[in-house]
């Protein structure tokens, strides 16, 4: 019966008692107390015994722990590490993976696995009844100038007019896009993110209705989005209408966009899929070769949440698993400490049992001590987790999905408390195994020791293998030849005044003057501009090889398109393999293109690429290949979302390839790349000064060595892997210390046996070999178990290894060697100490 029900029954009973007493004519106040006093007394009696015992146990446990501060500190810190790491990781998993996306009815939001052109989107939007479909696109960098303020680059997203309706959000201020905003010539409207509005505009509500300049063109601010809205990227600062102009060159080619759809009321996913399967490609578009054979239906429909979290889900789960294993190791370590402590107190316990203390009473006391330790460890762990979460949020890259939503909430604290309680329960029970009073009086470790050694070694070997594999994959990642030489190269992003870039020739002249000025600086070997640095944004160019056209209606060839100035390959250290580089004459002469080695091999297999021609979609004339250069890695990672596009084509900024944002102007913002001679480093200040002299209207930012830009690009994957590696590194530490502790303690417990054997004439070497061999056997067994588990588990690590072999024998051998060395040392050193003790003293000891 629950306490509450018992209490209510008792209340009723006492009420009837009072009525009966009153009926008997007893004055209620004489001996019977007031109802409150009676109630108080009952409460006291019921709770008293329990509290009394618990209080005595806790006082006893506190006294015991205070008597051995070293033990207490070690145990609490170990537990705090395990619980803190697990709770911190869980708070990430909880906020990022478990909580629903912060939009109304998020389970109705779906996205396709494929991206679509504007034309395909319009077709799908008009022919899909099951879903309300919106398109969004993260735009190339744009340049925003406030009415009376300075200009700055902003992260912008272009979205279809129904985007807000599909996502289910309303602007916090102002209104959303009007239905006609996507028509050509319309849509000079912009929505601001809450963060941008608060920081750049000081949360000025009067900004709605004002005008701002975006890349030099006037836009009306129509609203501010709510604070929690961060889509498509956590970094998005402004939203503009997505232009859908069938007359535009990029309507059917080039720009590809992800789509997001909301299931209409009462429609199931299966119905939506069936509807898509029934869609047919319109004849007219097929004949015109405008809609490829896959672009007329939504494929691979999946929840938006899955798509958003695709990159981080596996890493977060893995990191959580690693931290859980770490907690296991911490628990084993503390259990072992407690075991050693129990053995030290075996005599005390034996005496107490002999004096009549019940077995249950002693167990309860032990449990209390374990729970108290666990509670201290849990409290410290939750505090540690709070710190770790703050650290992670500061440290992880800003575009890590849903990072802003991560916090230490009730669920995380509950997990911490639960873990602490579980650990405490385990600690309390564990040392009781194997040991009646007699064994305890005799001292020694009891059973369970070998098991602890094996569990310890197996768990930590598993984690350390994982750490070794990820660390080696990181090293390999950093050492991978990117295809360019970053040493001695300084880069910067140039934002010219948009007014200075109309007409386009003026912009070109500005860059020409700028490059001339920079090339004249002392020590500069080469200087050039480029649309985007490697590992930065990428533009996909679609084109046809004149000699080998694709079948009608099929997808055109794709390649990474980069716009450069003459001298770019020299400045970047990209080797020229065939033909020639761009030169000044190409700036005015006919259209030229340089292709990468991979592109040449794929487009003209077995042929000479130089001299061939390609037809870029949307361009009037074909481009002639003048040279082939080495391949450059497009992404910091061996795989990208654009798998299968590894080829690059380069064009001059005087003749940029289509499509570019507004297709009749060249790209405005370019990156400057300057290579200096060794010993003549160009400083950031020097570069800024030179740009300031040559192009006073332009602003410069992101001035940094190319090496720094490269490592910034690697930062995302690195931090993700580090999440995992930190847990594994801690496992190495805790595991090694723990293994040493368990083994050394076991051997120390046998010092009497060693003494007897020595006294009986055993040779020292024999005894040492026997003792060390026993420890090694246990460690070896545990190690084999751990390595086998790691071998099975390594497959799930795949995504973190970036192509590194998850069965790399070197890593496994190194881990096995490491643990065996720790085990050997941990058995040998105490055994040697024991064997040096005078046998007579060892015998007398007990």
């Amino acid at each position, binding site marked *: 019966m629950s306490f509450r029900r018992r209490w209510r029954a008792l209340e009723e009973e*006492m009420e*009837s008692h009072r009525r009966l007493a009153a009926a008997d004519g007893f004055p209620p106040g004489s001996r019977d107390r007031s109802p409150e006093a009676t*109630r108080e007394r009952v409460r006291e*009696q019921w709770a008293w015994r329990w509290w009394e015992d618990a209080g005595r146990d806790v006082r006893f446990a506190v006294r015991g722990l205070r008597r051995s501060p070293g033990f207490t500190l070690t145990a609490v810190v170990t537990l705090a590490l395990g619980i803190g790491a697990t709770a911190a990781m869980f708070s990430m998993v909880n906020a990022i993976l478990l909580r629903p996306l912060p939009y109304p009815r998020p389970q109705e939001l779906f996205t396709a696995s494929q991206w679509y052109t504007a034309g395909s989107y319009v077709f799908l939007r008009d022919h899909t009844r099951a879903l309300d479909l919106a398109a969004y696109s993260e735009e190339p960098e744009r340049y925003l100038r406030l009415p009376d303020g300075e200009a700055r680059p902003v992260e912008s997203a272009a979205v279809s007019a129904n985007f807000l309706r599909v996502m289910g959000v309303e602007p916090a201020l102002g209104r959303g896009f009007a239905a006609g905003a996507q028509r050509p010539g319309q849509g000079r409207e912009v929505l601001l993110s809450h963060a941008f509005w608060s920081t750049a505009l000081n949360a000025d509500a009067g900004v709605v209705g004002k005008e701002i300049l975006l890349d030099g063109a006037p836009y009306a601010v129509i609203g501010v989005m709510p604070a929690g809205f961060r889509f498509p990227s956590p970094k998005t600062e402004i939203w503009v209408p997505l232009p859908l102009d069938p007359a535009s060159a990029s309507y059917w080619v080039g720009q590809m966009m992800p789509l997001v759809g909301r299931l209409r009321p009462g429609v199931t996913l299966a119905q939506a899929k069936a509807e898509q399967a029934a869609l047919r490609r319109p004849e007219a578009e097929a004949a015109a070769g405008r809609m490829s054979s896959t672009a007329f239906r939504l494929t691979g429909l999946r929840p938006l949440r899955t798509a958003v979290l695709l990159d981080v889900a596996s890493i977060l789960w893995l990191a959580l698993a690693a931290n859980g294993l770490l907690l296991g190791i911490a628990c084993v370590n503390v259990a072992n400490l407690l075991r050693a402590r129990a053995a030290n107190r075996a005599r005390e316990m034996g005496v107490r049992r002999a004096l009549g203390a019940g077995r249950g009473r002693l167990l309860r006391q032990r449990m209390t001590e374990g729970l108290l330790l666990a509670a201290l460890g849990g409290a410290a762990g939750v505090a540690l987790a709070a710190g770790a979460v703050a650290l992670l949020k500061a440290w992880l890259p800003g575009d890590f999905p849903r990072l802003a939503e991560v916090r230490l909430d009730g669920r995380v604290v509950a997990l911490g408390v639960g873990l602490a309680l579980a650990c405490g329960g385990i600690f309390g029970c564990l040392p009781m195994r194997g040991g009646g009073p007699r064994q305890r009086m005799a001292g020694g470790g009891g059973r369970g020791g070998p098991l602890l050694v094996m569990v310890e070694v197996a768990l930590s070997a598993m984690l350390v293998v994982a750490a070794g594999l990820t660390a080696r994959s990181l090293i390999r990642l950093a050492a991978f030849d990117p295809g360019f030489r970053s040493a001695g190269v300084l880069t910067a992003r140039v934002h010219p005044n948009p007014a200075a870039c109309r007409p386009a020739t003026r912009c070109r002249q500005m860059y020409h003057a700028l490059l001339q000025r920079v090339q004249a600086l002392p020590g500069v070997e080469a200087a050039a501009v480029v649309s985007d640095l490697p590992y930065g944004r990428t533009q996909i160019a679609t084109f046809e090889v004149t000699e080998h056209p694709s079948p009608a209606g099929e997808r055109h060839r794709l390649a990474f398109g980069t716009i450069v100035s003459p001298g770019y390959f020299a400045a970047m250290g990209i080797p020229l393999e065939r033909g020639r580089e761009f030169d000044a004459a190409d700036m005015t002469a006919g259209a030229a293109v340089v292709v990468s080695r991979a592109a040449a091999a794929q487009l003209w297999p077995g042929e000479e690429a130089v001299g061939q021609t390609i037809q870029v979609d949307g361009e009037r004339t074909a481009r002639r290949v003048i040279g082939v250069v080495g391949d450059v890695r497009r992404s910091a990672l061996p795989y990208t979302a654009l798998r299968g596009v590894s080829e690059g084509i380069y064009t001059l900024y005087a003749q940029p390839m289509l499509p570019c944002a507004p297709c009749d102007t060249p790209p405005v913002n370019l990156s400057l790349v300057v290579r200096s001679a060794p010993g003549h480093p160009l400083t950031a200040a020097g570069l800024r000064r030179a740009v300031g002299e040559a192009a006073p209207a332009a602003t410069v930012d992101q001035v940094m060595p190319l090496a720094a830009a490269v490592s910034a690009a690697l930062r995302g994957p690195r931090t993700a892997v580090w999440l995992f590696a930190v847990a594994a590194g801690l496992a190495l530490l805790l595991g090694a210390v723990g293994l040493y502790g368990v083994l050394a303690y076991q051997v120390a417990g046998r010092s009497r046996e060693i003494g007897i054997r020595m006294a009986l004439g055993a040779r020292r070497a024999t005894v040492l070999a026997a003792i060390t061999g026993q420890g090694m056997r246990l460690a070896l067994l545990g190690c084999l178990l751990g390595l086998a588990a790691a071998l099975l588990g390594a497959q799930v690590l795949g995504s973190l290894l970036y192509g590194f072999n998850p069965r790399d024998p070197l890593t496994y051998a190194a881990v096995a060697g490491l643990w065996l060395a720790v085990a050997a040392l941990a058995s040998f050193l105490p055994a040697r100490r024991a064997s040096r003790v005078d046998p007579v003293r060892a015998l007398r000891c007990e």
Partner: protein
Amino acid sequence: MAPDPIPLLPGTLDLLVLETLRWGPQHGYGIAVAIRSRSGDAFQVDPGSLYPALHRLERQQLVAARWEQSEQKQRVRVYRLSAAGRRHLEGERKKWQRMAAAVAGVLTPPAREPQP
């Protein structure tokens, strides 16, 4: 005026309750009244002790309890002694008698011979 009440020795309340119930089922108030009258007003049972004791005995299955209608048409909880309670009472009664005799023996002035 009744004599001053004496405080109950610890552990005796259960015994008194069980003994009272040996005479037939009774509700809590009735038990309190019976103990008071049979002890000549020496023991005045505090309801704050009585009801927890009754619940404890019920949990130990020494008594059984049921809500019933009293003669005055009141809802009361009536307790009756179980078979286990009867056995327990007899055991405790013997212990108590031995203890009372022993205590009395110890406390008896030395001039008189100790009782066997």
